[in-house]
């Protein structure tokens, strides 16, 4: 084999071998970093307060505790929601809001005097139905599924959002 051919061949061997090595290691690293954890969020129901505790038109902030898997730890995790009962006389109409502002996720407050939700981070304002009145939030307050069972409010969680 002529010297130049041999050189080229060996250079190709080096390129090929190092390509395979980098490819294998890079692929493993990419898969590991981007693959995420296999476990998904499971759907669950959390029992909150009796419906009779709710005053129509007045949102209240409710805490709950649930046992969750946080990566490798099984822990008691606290979460909260805003509950508000509608004014109507007929069937009980409950709305459950995710307590994170839809702008950047800050926790917001109910301003009793003004009758609005206010977020202290960037001045977002929502009405009692969660609609944006002022400020930078891009969409209305997120809602959670709920139902009334035996006179108690039950919220349903599960899927990518998870506990709040």
């Amino acid at each position, binding site marked *: 084999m002529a010297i130049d051919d041999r050189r080229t061949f*060996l250079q190709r*061997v*080096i390129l090929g071998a190092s390509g395979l090595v980098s490819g294998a290691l890079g692929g493993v690293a990419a898969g590991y970093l981007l*693959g995420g954890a296999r476990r998904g969020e499971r759907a669950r129901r959390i029992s909150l307060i009796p419906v009779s505790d709710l005053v129509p038109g007045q949102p209240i902030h409710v805490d709950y505790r649930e*046992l969750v898997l946080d990566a490798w730890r099984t822990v008691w995790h606290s979460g909260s929601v805003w509950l508000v009962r509608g004014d109507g006389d007929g069937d009980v109409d409950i709305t459950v809001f995710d307590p994170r502002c839809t702008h950047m996720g800050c926790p917001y407050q109910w301003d009793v005097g003004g009758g609005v939700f206010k977020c202290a981070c960037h001045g977002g304002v929502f009405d009692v139905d969660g609609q944006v009145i002022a400020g930078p939030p891009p969409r209305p307050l997120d809602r959670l599924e709920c139902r009334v069972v035996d006179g108690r409010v039950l919220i349903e969680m599960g899927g990518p959002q998870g506990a709040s």
Partner: protein
Amino acid sequence: MTLGNREFWDERLGLQAIRSQLLDRRVPATVGWAHTLGAVCLTLILVLVLTGILLTINYSPDPGHAYHSIRYIEREIVLGRLVRGLHHWAASFLIVAAVLHLLHTFFHLAFVRPRELTWITGVLMLLVILTLGFTGYLLPWDEKAYWATVVGTNMVGQTPVIGEPLLHLVRGGAEVGAAALSRFYGVHLTLLPLALAVLVGLHVYLVVRHGISSKKPESSQRFWPNVVAMDAVAALLVLGLLFYFALRFGAPLEAPADPTNTSYAPRPDWYFLPLFQLLVMFPGSAEAVAAVGLPFATGVLILTLPWWSRPFLRSPAGRSSLLAGAGLASVVVVLLGVTGVAPMAEGALVVDPAVPRGRVLFETLGCRNCHSLRGLGGIVGPDLTLVGLEHPDTVWLRDQLRDPRSHGPDTPMPNFPLEGERMSDLVAFLWSLGNDLRYSSDAPRLYTQSCSACHRLGSQEGGIFGPDLGQLGKIRSAAYVHQYTESPSSLNPEALMPAITSLTHEQVEDIARYVVATALQGN
């Protein structure tokens, strides 16, 4: 001025000079496949650094969480098992490759002037690698990790004069606990890799500076691409073997660390077995010789080889005896290691790892706030020391956890809706509590016939020749009571009790369990 333009980079980085010094150099024609060991070591170090970084992203260096974070990586992270397997096997492969590389260098006498520093940096690298191995295998915090570290750090404590303070420094306290794990992790991630990087840099610089030694130094071949091609192929083959081992065998993980486990037989990782076995040969006060003296002396001997070997290398006879001596020493070390593989005492009980995992859950979920074990814990709920004896039904236990009101509508116990393996682990633990004390319905009658003539059993009537056995189970295991019954003098030379020979082995076991369970249930 495009990015692909070679002159662009050469002007800024001086690449041409690097290329001519490093790649275009010539090396002796005798450089062959055995010389690829250095490149193989470098590749394995690269794999260890990469997989190490990936592992730290999902690992928690706290005794309460370390084990579970490793299981999280193994079971729930995509390719987690592979990454951990690569890291585990690359460490072992690296030690083998480094030792082979050292032996190859030694047998070619490549450590003599002017290459003494190359030799020293190499030996120091081997020491750093062994320390990386030692600090690394504590991190999973399983039984093997914990106990091997207890023994290994005890050996450090054997150092004369400074042993005590050294032991405290290494452990961060008197025992192997959170401080030990934390500093082993810190050193494994920062100090040791930095030291290794510096040593690798020095070592490679020196190899390039002095050239590769050879019996025919006047011969030559191109480093690039001839030798680099051999290095690349060797690296690829070793990596292939590594992937095979990682995929086929994975990295081991035993039960979670349990400092109260008396049946475990500690064993260090394979590369420390020769040292471990040395302790058998130097019992008593000579232990420090084996634990510290011999390893230290060996290390110094190997490090200073380029100097004390000079008289030997002046004659062919001297050279042969040096090589023969080294060969013999290597064989002895390997044999020593091989004898250390099997534990010296019987009795490592096979424990279902779900039980210790369940115990960890029991502690972290706060069960002790309301329940006690052996009288230690809360008083809101019942003592659970023998719950596995009272409710040997995993379905019942599962339901009690998931919905306590299904068994008792007024109970204040909250729901514990655990999922999958977490539920089965906790149930396995609870089921094990007292389960090993399960006795037959014959036991009370057998006890009355064989024992009550001399012994009371708490509230049960009996003789007064021997002690009241009512509280015995709180301080003695069923195994102890069993052995005492069959041969009292084996445990107590001054015992007046006669050996009970009229009962079968199974009957004695039954009575022993009954006696111990009675004491525990009575509290």
